[in-house]
């Protein structure tokens, strides 16, 4: 059975697209058939983060408007089998998406045998963000340990609970998962950053994983390769844990405390 997962946050720049790219790549690496859709019409970026920006011929809006078939618009990832990207339109205005059109695309993807349909939401709480979450079964709430991000996440949680298809039909609510990104354990220890416990406490959402602040994320974006593929990176390992936990595995949380450096590493390490 297919599951629709929205990656959302309210606030911009917290790591939605980075998370969408790594999460969908991670799921595909596990053998699932995954489609990841960029809902940010007019400001598309998922294609760039996933390194397929030069292969976009048709986009999400073309499919919704009936100008291209889904098969024509889905871009097959070159690194990971079973992973497909549906880019947002860069030229159309954001009203080009309709509820019926989005529903049709999601239904067609389900029929085509996709196990997971990951919806990368735009920032904000406007139409694009509402459409991205409307059909969701599960939600990844991407949050930075910072006041404005926590506040906006709380706002988007309210919308998930009130304005989704599941809420309107009175079905079981969307399953909410917290993904805390740009986490810096050293600053948490000195009392300068909200801790995972603080954010869980404030938002009352179960933690799926904390992604440590890492230079590897920018390097991965520069290269157009989801950071989850950079096996030596702590951020990649954290994203892999997120995928495993999402699939139901019980894995202890890591990267929550400062790594204790031995004398050798203190002297010679970076």
């Amino acid at each position, binding site marked *: 059975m297919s599951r629709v997962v929205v990656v959302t946050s309210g606030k911009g720049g917290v790591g939605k697209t980075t998370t969408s790219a790594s999460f969908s790549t991670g799921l595909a690496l596990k053998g699932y058939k995954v489609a990841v859709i960029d809902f940010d019409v007019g400001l598309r970026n998922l294609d760039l983060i996933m390194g397929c920006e030069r292969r976009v011929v048709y986009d999400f809006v073309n499919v919704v408007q009936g100008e291209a078939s889904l098969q024509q618009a889905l871009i097959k990832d070159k690194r990971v089998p079973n992973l497909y990207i549906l880019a947002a339109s860069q030229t159309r205005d954001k009203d080009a998406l309709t509820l019926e059109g989005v529903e049709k695309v999601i239904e067609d993807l389900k029929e085509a045998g996709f196990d997971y349909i990951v919806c990368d939401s735009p920032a904000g709480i406007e139409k694009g963000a509402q459409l991205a979450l409307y059909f969701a079964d599960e939600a990844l709430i991407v949050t930075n340990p910072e*006041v404005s991000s*926590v*506040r906006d996440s709380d706002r988007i949680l*309210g919308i998930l609970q*009130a304005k989704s298809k599941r809420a309107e039909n009175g079905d079981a609510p969307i399953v909410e998962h917290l993904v805390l990104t740009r986490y810096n354990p050293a600053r948490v220890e000195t*009392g*300068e950053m*909200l*801790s995972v416990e603080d954010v869980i406490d*404030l938002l009352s959402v179960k933690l799926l994983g904390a992604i440590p602040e890492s230079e590897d994320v920018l390097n991965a974006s520069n290269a157009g390769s989801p950071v989850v593929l950079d096996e030596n990176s702590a951020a990649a390992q954290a994203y892999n844990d997120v995928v495993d936990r999402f699939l139901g595995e019980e894995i202890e949380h890591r990267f929550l405390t400062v790594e204790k450096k031995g004398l050798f590493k203190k002297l010679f390490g970076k």
Partner: protein
Amino acid sequence: MALLDYLIGQRKKKSANVAKDRLQILLAHERSERNTPDYLPKMREEILAVISKYVDIDQDKLQISVDEADGFEVLELNLVLPENH
């Protein structure tokens, strides 16, 4: 210096704690507003218009809220009348 920083640090509240306290208050407030019915602001305006016909009141003096108490939804109106009335 480290010792001095340590002592100062003990006295000054950590910024993360300040952040958490502020967010707790703010989120509680915003969540209660989120649960109010959509018609409330319009209804408030109309009630004010009716009252203004008879009494000269300050627009800010009418407080209106929907709460839940003992399983009942309670619509609470709170209006302070001017003193010389």
